[in-house]
């Protein structure tokens, strides 16, 4: 207790900052989710859990939740596999490696909205470059191309492609950093014992990457779950709710319908889902433990 008091002047500003920018907004979100808030923002009193009932009772809620799970699992999974391969490649010495390493950073450095818009325009019928290409090589028979971003399934799939693309750099570099901590002796020893390339990678290198991979996956799960801009751009013009995840649904409640109370309720649900996923993950994988 005495120690705590002594420490207070040093940790005080940090605690205050966390309270102001983390705890207060979370508290406000929880509070709003139990209120009836008019479109112009006037608080018309408490309604208990009615907002949650409305949100969960919405006929598209469960499909949206399921799609969110698919979104997170597929994007994080593909990102991880791609990053492991890329990191292994970039860890080898070859001419021009420095340039390739720089190139891998580009999707990270570019604005996500810009990257998505570039792909979105490429997919437009009539003038999109991807559509023109597919028409020219004869894969699409209609001369104006196919409306990739106009059908829920294809728009969602393309959004996943973009999400993987922009998630790759960070994951690759995290794993690359992990690869460089793998001692050369362990690989050498495996070779001497007669292990082939694949066997060495899966039995010797990969286990030593556990720390890097598990941290990368954890951060990716949070990022991808909370990702709005890619889906917003890719699926924004589609009517109905057949391409929505929880995040785009929160956005629709807030921006289109101006129902701050429902948006807050769904945010609380999203928040709890993320916390639950992370809690399970931290328990099972223990990414923050030393190897």
């Amino acid at each position, binding site marked *: 207790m005495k120690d705590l008091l002594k420490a207070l002047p040093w940790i005080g500003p940090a605690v205050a900052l*966390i309270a102001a*920018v*983390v705890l207060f*907004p*979370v508290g406000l*979100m929880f509070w709003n989710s139990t209120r009836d808030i008019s*479109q*112009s923002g006037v608080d018309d009193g408490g309604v208990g859990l009615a907002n949650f009932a409305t949100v969960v009772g919405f006929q598209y809620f469960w499909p949206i939740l399921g799609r969110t799970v698919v979104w997170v699992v597929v994007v994080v999974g593909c990102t991880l596999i791609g990053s492991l391969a890329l990191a292994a490649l970039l860890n080898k010495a070859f001419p021009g490696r420095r340039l390739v390493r720089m190139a891998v950073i580009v999707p990270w450095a570019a604005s996500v909205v810009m990257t998505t818009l570039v792909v979105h325009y490429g997919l*437009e*019928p*009539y*003038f999109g470059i991807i559509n023109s290409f597919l028409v020219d090589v004869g894969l699409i028979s*209609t*001369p*104006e191309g196919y*409306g990739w*971003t*106009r*059908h829920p399934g294809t728009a969602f799939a393309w959004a996943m492609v973009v999400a993987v693309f922009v998630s790759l750099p960070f994951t690759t570099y995290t794993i690359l950093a992990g690869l460089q901590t793998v001692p050369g002796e362990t690989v050498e020893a495996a070779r001497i014992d007669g292990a082939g390339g694949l066997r060495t990678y899966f039995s010797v290198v990969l286990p030593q990457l556990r720390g890097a991979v598990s941290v990368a996956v954890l*951060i990716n799960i*949070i*990022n991808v779950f*909370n990702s*709005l801009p890619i889906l917003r751009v890719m699926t*924004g*013009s*589609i*009517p*109905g*709710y057949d391409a929505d995840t929880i995040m785009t649904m929160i956005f*629709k409640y807030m921006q*289109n*319908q*101006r*129902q701050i109370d429902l948006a807050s309720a769904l*945010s609380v649900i999203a*928040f709890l889902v*993320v*916390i639950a996923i*992370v809690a399970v993950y*931290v328990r099972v994988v223990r*990414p*923050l*433990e030393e190897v």
Partner: protein
Amino acid sequence: MAQYRRLGGILAITLATTTGLTACGFGGTTSDEGTDGGSTTLDLLVPSYSDATQGQWNDVIAGFEEANPDIKVNLQVESWDNLESVIATKIQGGEAPDIYNGGPFAGFAEDELLYPVEDVTSDETYADFQPTFLENAQVDGTTYGLPFIASARALFVNDALLEEAGAEVPATWDELLESAKKVSELGGGVAGYGMPLGSEEAQAEAAVWLWGGGGSFGDSEAITIDTPENLAGAEYIKTMIDEGATQADAGATDRSPLFDIFVQGKIGMQVGLPPSVGQIESDNPDLEYSIHPIPTKDGEPFTLGVADHLMAFQNDGDKQEAITAFFDYFYTADVYVPWVQAEGFLPTTVSGSEALSGEEALAPFLEVLPDAQFYPTTNPDWAATDSAFKALFGQLDGDKSAKDVLAEIQDQVDAG
């Protein structure tokens, strides 16, 4: 130690999940109040329509101050994004501007903040407004907004494509279907009728069809979407799509990108706005096109109008004369018409329309302006209606029946 590390991790995670929700802003501005040396000061708060807006207003104010040396005008220009938060902050702080240019006015009128228009304009100025626009600016029979600038819609027709297909410019839905099908049959990616039901402005295309069939979205009292009158238009949209008279994927096509295709000459007919004329002029001046009234079920002319308004705040109630002087000066055709013209919109006054009647490009719009119908923006549920159309109307392009789509929109409005 492991415990602390986990705590740190959880804090980091909490941070990551909540930063997205902390982006809210509080903004405030102050303005000089009152009178100096016996002269009156009017505060004018306006949005920026284009880069030229501020200069336009400065010219108006310079002319007005010369004619009325005892009145000073303070101009404040804000972006459309900020405008509504700025006016709300000013009202809360008791510093409402004397004259404000914006869209919705019913909320201010209900809070009794505004002068009725008849109290701050001379009889001549008031009588000069187009009657349809005045009706649209009324709450419970009293006019609170001065119709400021207008926008209307008309059918843009690619004459070259229609001629090639041997099709006529349509006036009714049946003629439209026939002409559009002929143009679509040209092939090569050409579409007969450009139908944007995507979220960008689905409510506009909905109005074009549902109202053109004799329906409406309701009035200031009740929003009525799921009605037999509206069903006629919704079903005809389905017919157009099913018979291949429109571009592919009408349900998820946004208006602006689709109009780009029209400008490129790949679409036979599409509904456009006055600024569309300028777009064609700058992007593809060679396009052979003409502008016609929107086809309706029985050929009766109509257009979807949108109007922004000027409004006068009462504040202390001591500037009524100065405000009247300003409005009377501004709405003279010599001052008003150049303003409207520079911004590419349509005038809301009879004298303004007459002054612009020589403009060939605007003529088709001016012609239909007296028949303009408006969104029920004075209804508190309008925002919910607008978003329900954006989110759901495009489902007409799909397996859902027209009746189900209208019912779903009505449900969402009623729930909102």
